[in-house]
């Protein structure tokens, strides 16, 4: 049951592989649950053989995911089978405030649910990702000054009061990591390092298939690994953090004198069109990221490094230098250097992770009754 819930849809044979149960047992369980209306099966084919595709029945409800970025917000709705039904992006002002942001998210969510002819009562849970460390137990932003206008805000409390649905909050890079492991580039991997390189730099650690949060939610904050003791002061208050070398404002400032006013997307587009200045800025960012990621890899030796966020759209321009430095600086292993891949879910990774968290925490009435 939870296996189907985590992966959205899979065949009975795969289900047997994942759960470790015998195919006959799986078949019996699936039949039983189908009769009860919890699962839905459809004939399909897998490597040329007939198979049964198993998904959760749709009438079980909806879950919602919200991702606040530095300059935009994304809201998605999915059914309990991980199928995204509606998704909407909205640009946000710089330094947006928690009250206005959460208000817009709540309004947008309500309108999207209504446009599906559903009611808010059908939404079982909401997952929210914010670009700052979050104490997942309290839903409170765990640091001060990282996300101006959001300091000390209990996101889950504010939003729950607004929409009356259970809200689960996490750091956006953690959610991106979760989404890549469940649905994206890192499917099947157990230990994964996810880097989110957009306006800021975030990181998510996945250990044994679970997101690692640490003591108070600041685990994986790779953007604040020190690269230069005497470097510039970072928004976190330390000096020479990775983010002061590869954060979008820094990259854009480097190009301001020669290229004028650009956005991060302009830089990526121009780099892909061969602009040498923009290529250089992105490949240097790759070098810095590689150096920081190498430290993390030396500590926990992941199977895979997934690079997401907007800058990852630059592809090889960013990833090649990153791979080179990472291979240089990690302990040589007989297994060879760690693989570095680009995110598969792209800009949607974080919101898909938010959906996954909402789904995990959703009290699906059927599942509780049947499994119990």
């Amino acid at each position, binding site marked *: 049951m939870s296996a189907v819930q985590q992966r959205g849809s899979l065949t009975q044979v795969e289900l047997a592989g994942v759960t470790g149960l015998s195919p006959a047992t799986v078949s019996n369980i699936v039949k039983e649950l189908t009769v009860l209306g919890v699962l839905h099966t459809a004939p399909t084919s897998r490597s040329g053989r007939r198979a049964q595709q198993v998904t959760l029945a749709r009438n079980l409800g909806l879950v919602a995911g919200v991702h606040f970025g530095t300059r935009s917000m994304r809201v998605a709705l999915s059914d309990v089978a991980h199928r995204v039904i509606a998704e909407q*992006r*909205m*640009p*946000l*002002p*710089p*330094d947006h405030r928690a009250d206005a942001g959460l208000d817009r998210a709540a309004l947008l969510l309500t*309108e999207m649910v209504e446009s599906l002819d559903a009611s808010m009562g059908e939404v079982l849970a909401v997952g929210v990702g914010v670009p700052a460390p979050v104490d997942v137990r309290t839903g409170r932003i765990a640091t001060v000054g990282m996300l101006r206008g959001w300091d000390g805000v209990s996101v889950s409390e504010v939003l729950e009061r607004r929409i009356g649905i259970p809200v689960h909050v996490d750091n956006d890079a953690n959610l991106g990591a979760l989404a890549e492991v469940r649905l994206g580039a890192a499917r099947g991997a157990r230990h994964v390092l996810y880097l989110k390189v957009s306006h800021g730099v975030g990181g998510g650690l996945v250990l044994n298939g679970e997101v690692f949060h640490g003591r108070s939610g600041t685990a994986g904050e790779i953007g604040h690994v020190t690269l230069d003791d005497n470097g510039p002061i970072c928004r976190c208050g330390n000096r020479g953090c990775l983010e002061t070398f590869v954060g979008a404002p820094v990259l854009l400032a480097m190009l301001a*004198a020669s290229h004028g*006013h650009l956005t991060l997307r302009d830089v990526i587009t121009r780099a892909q069109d061969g602009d040498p200045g923009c290529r250089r800025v992105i490949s240097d960012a790759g070098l810095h990221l590689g150096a920081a990621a190498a430290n993390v890899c030396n500590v926990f030796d992941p199977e895979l490094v997934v690079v997401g966020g907007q800058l990852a759209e630059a592809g090889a321009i960013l990833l090649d230098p990153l791979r080179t430095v990472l291979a240089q600086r990690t302990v040589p292993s007989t297994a060879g250097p760690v693989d570095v891949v680009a995110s598969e879910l792209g800009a949607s990774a974080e919101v898909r992770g938010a959906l996954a968290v909402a789904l995990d925490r959703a009290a699906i009435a059927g599942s509780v009754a049947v499994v119990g």
Partner: protein
Amino acid sequence: MNGSVLSLRGISKSYGAVRALVDVDLEIRPHEVVAVIGDNGAGKSTLAGVISGALVPDAGQVLLDGQPVSLSTPAAARSHGIAAVFQDGALCANLDVVENIFLGQEVTRAVLLDEVAMEKQAWTLLGQLAARVPSVRIPVGALSGGQRQAVAIARSLLGEPRVLVLDEPTSALGITQTAEVLSLIERLRERGHGVVLISHSMADVQAVADRIVVLRLGRVNGEFDAASTSYEDLIAAVTGATSGAPRRGAPDVARGDGPRPAARPGPARAEVPGRADGPRRPDAHEVIP
């Protein structure tokens, strides 16, 4: 980065005794969203009218690529590559999407309308804007506000204008539609258009603009870099709590290709004593609902 497509120099416009615009300068560059904000009656719509050729200024110069031009009619403006979308979108509710987009500029083959070519081009335009329109053959009246706005913008994109003026594109829209229109403006910018966004929604303007020009009582009351300007500074300029934020000097000398000074409003703040202190800000918030 690039030079201006369109420059307004010392534009003034009066309606009888009402001075709607007084000595207004505005630079519009390609690949950039410049927002014009201001209170009711600050002259925003008059400015849109002047740029789009609907209004003829009493004084001042309009330069296109550095050459003086006369934008005496909307058609003249269009022929110079300036298109405008006004608040109501000026669409015919009973006509379908294709008919609306091509109204008055139909594609013909011999003497007949080339419906196939028009429909294809309509889909291309809407596709580039990533607009979600269910069908191009349904009456515009059946579309949502955001979709109608997308059709109105697609219509203005015919003939590849270099400058696009959007007058209050998000007023009277719900939040989903606002989100769509804002994303649309970002894509217009990516396509390389110079976009003039006229709005009084501070949140919408800050979300997509590169540069924000504040109009107050017909005068330019400051020009700000959108990324580094706070909501409070904008409100202060709109309400007049700060006045005379630095006017740009002779544009060609002062700006060039150099980096834009991030803290342009800085000096003004220092000149007006007490402006940055607490008590004024709450007032400013109350003035603007």
